[in-house]
Every structure is written in C-alpha cells, then in structure tokens.
C-alpha cells in the first residue's frame, strides 16, 4: 500500500491504495471527478523528492504528495 497526500488548497484527506508505479496512481486519480480539474497542474513528489517520471517505481509504505500551483511571498 502507498499513501497519497493532497497538499495546500486541495481539501482532501490522505488515502492509501495499491500501486506499483506513478502510472497506477495516475489511473486511479483520473477516475476521481473531484480531482480531474487539478491533475493538469499538480507536481508530484515521492517521499518528499519531486519527480517527473511516470514510471517511477513505488514500494510498500511510500508516500506520494500532490502539489498544486504555488505562490509564495
């Protein structure tokens, strides 16, 4: 099982799912109509490291963080 956490303004509790790569996470989240408007703009981190590799492998206990558009300062 891996945990998906939604950061910042995405008002949603963390969830746990079975996934062996980010591709599985993408397939899962694409089915969620509440999240579809966010997916285009989310950056992704695995265990707090940003990644741009959809085939990045996931292991049991990994944490995938979804980061919406930012605006510091």
């Amino acid at each position, binding site marked *: 099982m891996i945990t998906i956490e939604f*950061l*910042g*303004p995405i008002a949603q509790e963390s969830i746990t799912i079975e996934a062996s790569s*980010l*591709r599985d*996470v*993408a397939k899962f*989240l*694409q089915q969620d109509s509440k999240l579809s408007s966010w*997916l*285009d*703009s*989310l*950056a*992704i*981190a695995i265990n*707090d*490291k*940003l*990644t*741009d590799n*959809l085939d990045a492998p996931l292991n049991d206990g990994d944490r995938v*963080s*979804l*980061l*919406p*558009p*930012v*605006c*510091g*300062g």
Partner: protein
Amino acid sequence: MMLEIFEGALQPKEIFSRWYDDECNANWGAFIPFVGIVREEDEIEALSFDIYEPILINWFDAWQQKAKQRGAKLRMAHSKGDVKVHKSSYVAAVLSPKRRVALELIDAFVEDFKANAPIWKYDVIQNKRIYAKKRSMPMNGAGLLAKKD
C-alpha cells in the same frame, strides 16, 4: 538556520538586524536584502500561507548549493498563517564577496521562489480564506498525473 519559518507576520527589522550581526564580520562585500510586503488591493484584509516544509527545505538547500558554488550565501524567512496588509510575509538576502554575483542571485532566487517553493497563498476577505489560484504557478514538471497511456 538559514531558512526560518514564522507563524504570522515577519519582523523585518529584527530579522535583518540579527542577520547583519551574524554576517558583518564574515568579510562579505555585498549584502542584498529583499522584503516582500502584503499590499492592500482587491479588498483583501490579509494573505494567508500554507507551507510544505520538507520540500521547501530541499528546494532551499539546492539553492544554497548553487550560491555556495559562486562563493555566496542565501538566507530567507517566510510566514505561515495570516499576514495582514502592510506587513511582511517574506524576506530574503544574498551575501557575496562581490556585488555582481549577489545582484544576479537575488533576482534568480526570488523568481524561482515564486515558481517552485511549495507555498500556497490565500486571500483573506471577510474572514474567508480563498486560494489565490489565478496568481499561482504550476511547479516544474506539473501535469504528470494527467498523462494517459
């Protein structure tokens, strides 16, 4: 700590005074400060901020390494929670032996901060916290999970 996070508004005079005392004997030739102040516009009473600290620390450490390679050093402080108009939510500084490196770094650092530091901004209007979506920027690599087979 070169990266400091405070609850509520920053106190820039205290922060810069402390940083100056820390650094004044380190033989830097240039110390360039930046102060971000919440402007009164569009009926906002305050801005409010969420920060994801683990990735902010990684982002800052990567910039510190870039600065170090040029003989320079970065410091920054940011607020979390609410910051009223006319108060400061963000301060940064570059210290460098020569002014040119410091001037270049403060520009690049502050711009990348706006684009890639994991901080989310909300307008506070009539005590409601509204995500500043139009002013926000997708981070590098965003959109990965929208890709289909």
